[in-house]
């Protein structure tokens, strides 16, 4: 039976991992991921699950151990944050290049310097080209639901790629919210048995993992990997439809909010979408035709579908919780790429917000709405890219 609970985002992710009971989990502590893995370690120590934990000496080794374990032939998970993900960077490409279905919660955190343990999206955005599928989550419920679905997507025979499930550090990982846990059996049945493929431990059928591939084949090898990514849209949609049956919750590649008759829109990832929806409601009460679009699947990015939704709008403001210094925010460039090939081109604005855990307040969402409305009305002196709410 599904039960309502009041838990933190980290609790929710740990609970999902417990219900899934992966064969091996490698972990290294980093704030704000720490209590996710601490909670999970308690389940292991108390014998509630039989996962083998490898408590490694760095995140680089965590991902390396996950790669070895996944290649060996079983279900594997880890979790990390910010600099931990950055340290894994080299190995992220190895995991996806070897087509290993590793699943990893990423509790989003800023990167140094200066040192900061709080939320922004620089970590996952830095890994956006690594060949990992990325699912983003507004709250603990979505983080939990995405994590369960992630295993099905990663392990799907048409995909076999690693998945990271992003959730905002502290804002979601450490704050308690009401959500629903699905019954253990339902999760187990939904995730099913891990179907091994080319297992390294199959002594009778020896395989070699990680060959040297030279100029004659590397290009084609990467094309195959790219093709697998293209199939993720369909599989993610199919998995979501099945998930709805056990959860009653509907998921798509992205969420639209009050977009039916919208003339302008905010685009925002993760927790700031919650705050923004409230402010969109208030603006709607005042007769402003603004909506919101929240990507869930950031890699691969559903350019076509999002372009279709946004092409009729007058203006769009993309909120980025990370910067590509000297260029536009990473979400902005995807939205621009989504729109370029469609006839109607809304004016685009880029607003950088919430770096290093700076609160994203209703007044910040309002600033973005005011800017996008002004752009729709033809105001010409608006900054294309701007940091929101800079303190004097």
């Amino acid at each position, binding site marked *: 039976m599904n039960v309502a609970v009041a838990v933190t985002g980290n609790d929710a992710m740990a609970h999902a991992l417990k219900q899934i009971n992966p*064969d*091996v989990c*490698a972990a290294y502590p980093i704030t704000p991921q720490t209590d996710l893995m601490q909670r999970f370690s308690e389940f292991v120590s108390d014998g509630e699950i*039989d*996962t*083998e934990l*490898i*408590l*490694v*000496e*760095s995140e*680089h*080794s965590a991902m*390396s*151990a*996950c*790669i*070895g*374990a*996944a*290649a*060996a*032939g*079983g279900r*594997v998970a880890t979790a990390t944050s910010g600099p931990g993900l950055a340290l894994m960077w*080299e*190995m992220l490409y*190895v995991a996806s290049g*070897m087509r290993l279905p590793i699943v990893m919660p990423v509790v989003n955190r800023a990167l140094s310097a200066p040192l900061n343990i709080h939320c922004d999206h620089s970590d996952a955005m830095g890994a956006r080209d690594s060949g990992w599928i990325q699912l983003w989550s507004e709250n603990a419920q979505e983080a939990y639901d995405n994590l369960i679905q992630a295993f099905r997507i990663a392990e799907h025979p048409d995909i076999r790629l690693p998945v990271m499930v992003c959730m905002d550090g502290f804002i979601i990982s450490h704050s308690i919210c009401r959500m629903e846990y699905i019954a253990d059996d339902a999760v187990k049945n939904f995730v099913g048995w891990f179907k091994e493929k080319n297992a*390294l*431990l*199959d*002594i009778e059928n*020896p*395989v*070699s*993992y*990680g*060959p*040297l*591939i*030279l100029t004659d*084949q590397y290009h084609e090898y990467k094309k195959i990997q790219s093709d697998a990514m293209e199939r993720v849209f369909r599989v993610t949609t199919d998995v979501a439809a099945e998930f709805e049956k056990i959860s009653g919750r509907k998921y798509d590649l992205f969420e639209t909010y009050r977009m039916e008759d919208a003339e302008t829109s905010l685009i925002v990832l993760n927790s700031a979408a919650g705050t923004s929806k409230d402010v969109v409601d208030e603006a709607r009460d005042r007769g402003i035709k603004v909506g919101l679009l929240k990507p869930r699947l950031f890699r691969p990015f559903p350019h076509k579908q999002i372009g279709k939704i946004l092409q009729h709008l007058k203006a769009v403001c993309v909120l980025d919780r990370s910067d590509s210094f000297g260029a536009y925010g990473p979400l902005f460039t995807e939205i621009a790429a989504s729109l370029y090939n469609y006839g109607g081109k809304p004016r685009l604005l880029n607003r950088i917000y919430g770096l290093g855990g700076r609160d994203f307040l209703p007044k910040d969402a309002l600033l973005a709405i005011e800017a996008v409305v002004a752009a729709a009305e033809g105001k010409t002196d608006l900054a294309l890219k701007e940091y929101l709410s800079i303190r004097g």
Partner: protein
Amino acid sequence: MSVSLKLKDLSEKEVLLSSGHRMCAGCGAAIVVKMVLLAIDKPVVVCSPTGCLEVTTCISDYTSWKTPWIHSAFENAAATMSGVETMYRALKKKGRIDKEITFVVFAGDGGTYDIGFQSLSGAMERGHDMLYVCYDNNAYMNTGIQRSSATPFGAATTTTPAGSAIPGKMQHRKNIAMIMAAHDIPYVAQAAPSHYKDLMRKIQKAAAVKGPKFLNILSPCNRGWRSRIDDAITLSRLAVETCTWPLFEIENGETTITYKPKKKKPVEDFLKPQGRFAHFNKPENEWLLKKIQQKVDREWDNLIRAESAKGFYN
């Protein structure tokens, strides 16, 4: 029942590294790998970091490995194998696998002493059941003979060329075997392919012990050592006879020297056939030879003391 180490019996055993690989002619590492694999009687799963052995034995679509093999990156063979070995335990616990398997890492000195050091230390501390073999050829040979912390004092490499201001590498080797022994793992040993029975007996001993095991095996490299192409075994023997490369084992912290030369040869005998030490002959560089001899003498004495004290030195 361990494999017979009689040459006749060994010659009839299948080598799990097939011929056709691209290791250089006269490469010591290829000989070492074959000796190690021949000595083990259980199924073997192998992991190699990026390096000579890796790039020459598995070039898509070909592989020389007749046994499961994985390479993931340069600095993480021990961590990668930690994952493989842990999955093995996980699946065995659940009854999804029943075979006994020996997990062997073959890594060069760069992947062991330097960039792979942290992941090696972590894996040894965690106690994974793996046999970590370092084929020590004294430098980064795959990238073109750059110095590593295993390069001997005075040796010329491409990043420590013997110049007029600096005559080669100015630091001594890291003593990796003792560092591994300090991890309090059940078995640490040093071996050389010239003494193949000693080497293979050590592998058999290590493979029979549960937990982390470390073997450092000298692997002469004619390209990097600037020596004759057919000199690998001769140089290996000279390294042992000069006590430059002592043969010993440390079982549960107790040192045993497994071979003591009747008469310790001067280090010069080992250095002379190698071009990387050619600059030692210049009159102004005489001090290099003295310094290297002093270091070899001190380490050999330490080893003898450690043996009689039933411990290991640090």
